[in-house]
């Protein structure tokens, strides 16, 4: 697969929830090349080297025709700039390895918080790849407002269960409780993305049931292309490190220490 470096025209930047933005740009090449779970490195400042210096990694949230979207929450200087007015984005991608999607069998997409971002693209893919197979979507957040992006999930027609920490939408509690209620007694493939403690819970529950679990990790990284070695995660089997950008961001939960 060819990695691209390109400038893409921004077509939309919508605040979909409190401080949560969905930024959409045009790139036919990226739309064609990208696979669910892969990410892009975005330069947030427009001039070549103006502060902040580093690119930021974002997973691909949505692909419709030649329109590619990312979903992000304003948490610092970089995302603040991205939330403002941008005419074009400078990006590298698609980077990393995406999810391995089984064509048959039960598949559960378990997302938490902003971790729902790559799962929409994955669900879009499932429509094409496994339309008649059982695909279940379980999404959790702290509060209902953070679940605003779910209307895109609903359009796809897969069964969706929600959980919120404060009970403002769906089940009052963790998304892992939804797994117990909706998945027991069958052979599932689980893919998950969200806060580390949540993914740890999902991975443990999957392991206890003998389900295969793929986790999508986040890390600080300087380059995104395997050069800086900054995005290290500890490997489970030996005393070494794997790298989120090159070996991930999607790992089998058995490979890494969460």
């Amino acid at each position: 697969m060819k990695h691209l470096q390109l400038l893409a025209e921004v077509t939309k930047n919508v605040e979909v929830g409190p401080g949560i933005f969905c930024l959409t740009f045009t790139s036919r090449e990226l739309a064609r090349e990208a696979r669910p779970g892969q990410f892009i490195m975005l330069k947030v400042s427009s001039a070549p080297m103006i502060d902040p210096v580093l690119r930021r990694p974002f997973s691909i949230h949505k692909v419709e025709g030649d329109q590619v979207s990312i979903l992000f929450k304003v948490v610092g200087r970089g995302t603040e700039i991205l939330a403002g007015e941008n005419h074009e984005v400078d990006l590298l991608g698609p980077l990393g390895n995406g999810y391995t999607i089984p064509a048959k069998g039960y598949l559960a997409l378990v997302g938490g918080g902003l971790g729902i971002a790559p799962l929409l693209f994955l669900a879009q893919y499932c429509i094409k790849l496994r339309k008649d197979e059982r695909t279940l979507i379980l999404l959790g957040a702290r509060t209902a407002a953070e679940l605003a992006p779910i209307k895109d999930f609903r359009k796809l027609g897969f069964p969706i269960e929600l959980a919120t920490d404060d009970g403002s939408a769906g089940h009052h509690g963790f998304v892992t409780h939804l797994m117990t209620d909706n998945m027991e007694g069958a052979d599932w493939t689980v893919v998950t993305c969200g806060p580390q403690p949540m993914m740890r819970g999902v991975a443990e529950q999957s392991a206890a049931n003998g389900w295969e679990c793929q986790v999508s990790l986040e890390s600080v990284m300087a380059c995104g292309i395997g050069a800086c070695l900054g995005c290290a995660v500890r490997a489970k089997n030996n005393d070494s490190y794997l790298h989120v950008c090159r070996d991930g961001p999607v790992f089998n939960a058995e490979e890494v220490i969460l």
Partner: protein
Amino acid sequence: MEHADGGAPSPCRSPALWAIKHETKLIARSPGGLSFYHNFLFFIPVKRVLGQIFSSHPRVHENAGCASRYFRGIFTVKMTISLLQRNSLDSKMKKIDLTTSIGKWDLKNPVLTASGTFGYGQEFADYIDLNTLGAIVVKGISLLPRPGNPPPRVVETSCGMLNAIGLENVGIEEFIKEKLAVLSQYDTDVVVNILGDTINDYCELCTRLDQVEGIKAIEVNISCPNVKRGGVAFGTDAGMAHRLCSEIRKMTGKPLILKLSPNVTDISLIARAVEDGGADAVSLINTLLGMAIDIKTKKPRLANIVGGLSGPAIKPVALRMVWQTANAVKIPVIGIGGISSAEDALEFLLAGASAIQVGTANFINPAVSGEIIRGIKNYLLEQGLEAVSDLVGSLQM
């Protein structure tokens, strides 16, 4: 870093350099890359000129008036002149000599990639034509593989970043077998950066590399701040630096470049010590030791607590040290530190660096080294200089 003029968004004041950057943008979008774009540009004038010559021929335009024919003739002459001018510009560009040398080693241009910022080269092959680089300096290699430091390993700072990777690398044997084999496919010089804990480690590494074809030079890291025994002891003590350099000199005939630490009182003293020890060149600066704290958790942002600062933030410090060192030693100096553009590179060359290395900028724009090479060439053309060597150390005081 706002633009003082507040006008055009181009950060370059020189129109030629702006054109280079602009062209790069076009290349990034065009599937055919540089050669396609150039052919296209060249093709249009030829076609137009030929078209004009034919269309102004009397037999083709029998009904056209004399005046019309006259103007067509003038236009043809003008087009031909502009074509000739373009050709002469092309031939001037071709004539510009970018070669530089480090001891016996001749480089095709003075732009190298800094160790630790360019992986083992292959990672960048999709973004930049590796054949165009002056040389690739690979990630630091030790005798045995090293796992590196626990995460978090990097953190962004104002106009820069801190890293504490901890010299994670595949070890010398796997490097030679796997990584070098891939790099050898390219027509670009390879410099291996080495690191060790003892003089013996460095000697063994040099002995091993001396036998390996396809390695043009060895860069000796005596300056990594991120591991307890990462050679930095050799880089902060002139006596030890001298001893190490004299010992490894016996092990190899390949050019030896000693990479110096800025975390010393007087870097030129260390440079002189390794020059006496037989170094062919010095490269500087490695990262500046720094730190960042998360005030919410009240913990250091790096697991290693401290790390090396790099990026545009360190450029003025690096430039000063390169200038100081270039005035203190006779061997060539390779300038490193925050170089992100052709203008930055030119500053280092003016200060006395015979070559430069691009580091952190590779992370942000993996194609930046190519842009820097073209930018240097254009600057020389603008300045009426024929060779990059005319520029080295030509700082006006």
